[in-house]
């Protein structure tokens, strides 16, 4: 699979969440995603970026634009070195929140993308990868 573009931006402040949303939107347009798919991916990115900031204490977002020969897509990887997630299955459940939110973050975000992967180790950090194909 060819990686056409590989960018990395910090997620350290709320302003960075907005910058991340804009970068994802621009890339989604460039990759030819439909308006609905653009909106889903940007919303998913916003949810995960907020998790990286609020739960992970900040980190970064990597954006790759892909071409696997038949399809084009965008892969986003959010990494932090925060406290990690002890019970991933619980964290993925709708309605679960430790931050006073609605608890829609992870489970809801998974429904907005084609591929979703979460790796976390308590004390070491969390890495969330999401991918949306055109």
């Amino acid at each position, binding site marked *: 699979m060819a990686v056409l573009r590989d960018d990395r931006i910090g997620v350290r402040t709320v302003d960075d969440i907005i910058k991340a*949303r804009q970068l994802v939107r621009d890339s989604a347009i460039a990759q030819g995603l439909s308006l609905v798919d653009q*909106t889903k991916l*940007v919303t998913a990115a916003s949810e995960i970026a907020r998790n990286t900031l609020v739960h992970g204490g900040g980190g970064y977002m990597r954006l790759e634009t892909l071409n696997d020969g038949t399809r084009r897509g965008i892969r986003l990887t959010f990494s932090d070195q925060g406290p990690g997630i002890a019970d991933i299955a619980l964290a993925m459940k709708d309605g679960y929140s430790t931050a006073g939110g609605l608890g829609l973050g992870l489970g809801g975000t998974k429904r907005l993308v084609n591929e979703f992967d979460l790796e976390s180790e308590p004390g070491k950090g969390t890495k969330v990868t999401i991918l949306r194909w055109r």
Partner: protein
Amino acid sequence: MERIPILKMGPYLLVTIQVDMHDRVAMTLQDELTQQIVAHHARGVLLDISSVNVVDSFIGRMIGNIAGISRVLDAETVVVGMRPAVAITLVELGMALPGVRTALNVDAGMALLKSAGRIATNGRPAR
């Protein structure tokens, strides 16, 4: 910091969100709108989100909060102009904005607010 203007139109307040909303801007809007509802004895709030292209769970929660707070203060909130792509995304995210009244555009939203004012639902005289 940029602020979102709150316009007074008779007994109603009109808020048009035209920026990619920063968290602080959203919190400020919630506070200012609450104060303006009380200061103007507003009967309704029209929240126009037709220029908004992303509503994540944070902004969705703020919209729900505004509707809830205004209801407690005896004012109705109607959210108007949600883009189709935003509606699809919100529902898939699991956030269908329960308890928030919606209308397709400002005209329909205003009609809804006016009719809500005429129908007395709790034994009080109609407004």
